[in-house]
């Protein structure tokens, strides 16, 4: 079973899942095989679940959790929260909000 971080929430995919295209948000993708779990952090992207029980994950960046630097994540979260509070234009606010979203997801991934 694979749990994917869809924009609509955590989604579990088992063999025989109905064909779906899901947009992914920054979050943890976990692959469960028996008792083994392998987790990856996905920066954003899509998941294509095909009728033949193959699922493709399309992401620009997907990293195993142990490659993430916790200090950088905390620094980034503080920096973007600050940027969000001081943002003026819509674009600045959106960029800062993306920063907060990604770093919060990273932080959550490391703590989970």
């Amino acid at each position, binding site marked *: 079973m694979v749990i994917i971080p869809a924009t609509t929430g955590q989604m579990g995919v088992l063999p025989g899942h109905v064909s779906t295209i899901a947009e992914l948000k920054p979050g943890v993708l976990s692959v469960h095989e028996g008792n083994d779990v392998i987790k990856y952090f996905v920066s*954003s992207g899509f998941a294509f679940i095909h009728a033949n029980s193959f699922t493709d994950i399309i992401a620009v960046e997907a990293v195993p959790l142990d*490659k*993430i630097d916790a200090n*950088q994540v905390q620094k*980034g979260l503080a920096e973007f929260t600050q940027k969000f509070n001081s943002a003026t234009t819509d674009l600045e606010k*959106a960029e800062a909000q993306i*920063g907060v979203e990604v*770093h919060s997801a*990273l932080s959550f991934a490391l703590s989970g």
Partner: protein
Amino acid sequence: MASNAAMPFWRAAGMTYITYSNICANLVRNCLKEPHKSEALSREKVHFSVSKWTDGKPEKPS
């Protein structure tokens, strides 16, 4: 398309999906441990030079 409701915040601010996705990817790359960080940043580096063409001849590239 349908109404403007329930649009993601980045699209409401005028950003395209690909801009959003690339920003997310860069943020994740910046939070990697070394040596993975420098590998990722060098992997995504793009080299390009731009040259204007006039009268069928290229000028010096900028």
